[in-house]
């Protein structure tokens, strides 16, 4: 009697396995969540110290043009104007995305609509290879080829936003292309069939139906590309010239948030203002990538509604 009772009330093997599985999954998720939260905490606590501990005003930080954190300016506040870097980062990001998008759209259309077989065989591996090349290689190629060409054509030193844009263009092109290819592939084939049956030419069915149906996917791809461009440090640092000046044209040395961070972080002492100011730049970077992510989600959910 007791034995039967025990058998009936104790949990089965399957239930125990189920519990263990749940526990492991929960722990892993919790760990990752904790990691994200602690990164945010770390960056925010240091980055905000510039404003709370060192009493730099947020507005000055965002709008002043002089970046020289170890010096005190004429008005008695430290020179931590991040505007040149913010402008630099946004310029290279937006310009490279604008430059890359038409190429990415044509390549993706070629791979999915015009020559699916050849596209699959030739372009797919090329794009995957481009994604896998380390950024220092891109930077090196930029330094030895792009910078001299820009110097020869545009004058100046060759370092600057234009060189940064050109290098980033090659780096974000495969990102945008491969994501847009996925989104074009997910456009149902019967849209094409329906368009053709209504008397559309092949080109009309591509640009009036398939392109239009895949606009949310294209926007998502572009934003992912921009997120990559915005966060890219090494390659950009090698070709942009690293001068913390507000850029007045595309061919004079400039800097981005990431390039200032990589050059500066090793030369400052933890807990001092110059170090904290760099953390503030990192905070801006982090918030921007968060913004990019949110944007992707908003577009994604809108895209689902229209599907």
């Amino acid at each position, binding site marked *: 009697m007791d034995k039967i009772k025990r058998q009936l009330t104790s949990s089965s093997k399957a239930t125990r396995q189920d519990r263990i599985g749940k526990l492991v999954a929960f722990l892993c998720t919790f760990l990752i969540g904790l990691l994200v939260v602690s990164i945010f905490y770390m960056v925010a606590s240091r980055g905000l110290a510039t404003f709370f501990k060192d009493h730099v005003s947020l507005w000055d930080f965002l709008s002043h043009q002089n970046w020289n954190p170890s010096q005190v300016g004429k008005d008695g506040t430290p020179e931590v104007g991040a505007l040149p870097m913010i402008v630099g980062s946004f310029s290279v990001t937006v310009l490279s995305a604008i430059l890359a998008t038409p190429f990415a759209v044509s390549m993706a259309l070629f791979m999915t609509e015009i020559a699916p077989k050849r596209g699959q065989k030739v372009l797919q591996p090329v794009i995957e290879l481009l994604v896998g090349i380390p950024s220092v290689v891109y930077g090196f190629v930029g330094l030895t080829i792009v910078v001299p060409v820009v110097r020869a054509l545009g004058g100046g030193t060759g370092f600057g936003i234009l060189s940064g844009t050109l290098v980033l263009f090659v780096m974000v092109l495969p990102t945008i292309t491969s994501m847009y290819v996925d989104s074009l592939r997910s456009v149902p084939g019967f849209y094409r*069939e329906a368009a053709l049956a*209504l*008397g559309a030419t092949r080109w009309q069915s591509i640009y009036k139906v398939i392109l*239009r*149906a895949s606009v949310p996917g294209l926007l998502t791809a572009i934003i992912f590309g921009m997120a990559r461009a915005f966060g890219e440090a090494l390659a950009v640092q090698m070709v942009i010239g690293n001068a913390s000046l507000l850029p007045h044209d595309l061919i004079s040395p400039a800097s981005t948030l990431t390039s200032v961070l990589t050059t500066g972080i090793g030369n400052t002492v933890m807990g001092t203002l110059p170090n904290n100011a760099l953390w503030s730049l990192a905070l801006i970077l982090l918030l921007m990538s968060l913004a990019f992510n949110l944007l992707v989600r908003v577009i994604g959910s809108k895209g689902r509604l*229209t*599907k």
Partner: protein
Amino acid sequence: MANIITTRNVRLYYGDHEALHGIDLDFPKNQITALIGPSGSGKSTFLRCLNRMNDLVSGVTITGSLKLDGKDIYSPQTDVVALRKKVGMVFQQPNPFPFSVFDNVAFGLRLAGIKDHKLIQERVETSLKQAAVWEEVKDNLTDNALSFSGGQQQRICIARVLAVQPEIILMDEPTSALDPVSAGKIEELLLDIQDKFTVAIVTHNMQQASRISDRTAFFLDGKLVETGSTKQLFMAPKQEATSDYLNGKFG
């Protein structure tokens, strides 16, 4: 009675495999012709020959004569785009574009280069009325067509075809993905528009064929077994295979 489409000895090959074995079938103007037969009997394949949708499938060759208004559909001089404007098609799965209802129905008109917004508006309204879906969508013309029910979507697709004012409409099992009420609405609208359009409809539903069609063609294994007026074919089939199929002995 004039035949709008005449076909003689149509054979279709997938590579070396012959899928249609010499079909002779005519479609009289302003009548509904039903194509019935078990799955894989070639009725959909035959239907898709009529607007050259089989061109999209690689490895397909078609021989024989297919004529629309006396002109060869497969002649090298045929403008496929113009042909498909004359021969509209409604598919098995409702397939509206992910645009607004208005843009869906106006799609073919805009393709045809019609810029006059008023004319487009009129045509969209007439087509939606003909497709018996106007009352349900008239207040939501800017809503995404995919936000409507399956039956409504299919009628929007029919309106999209009607707007181009084709001469003949091919329907490939247009109601098989729909519930009986929605299917009934589509049958009614077919009866309403048949004085203006010629319809060729593939259906698995023999009651549907007997309710709406004027003529019926029975396909089996890539052959046209029997064709005749719907009444004659259902009441007094000449071939044993037809009678067996109608009585549910196979298929």
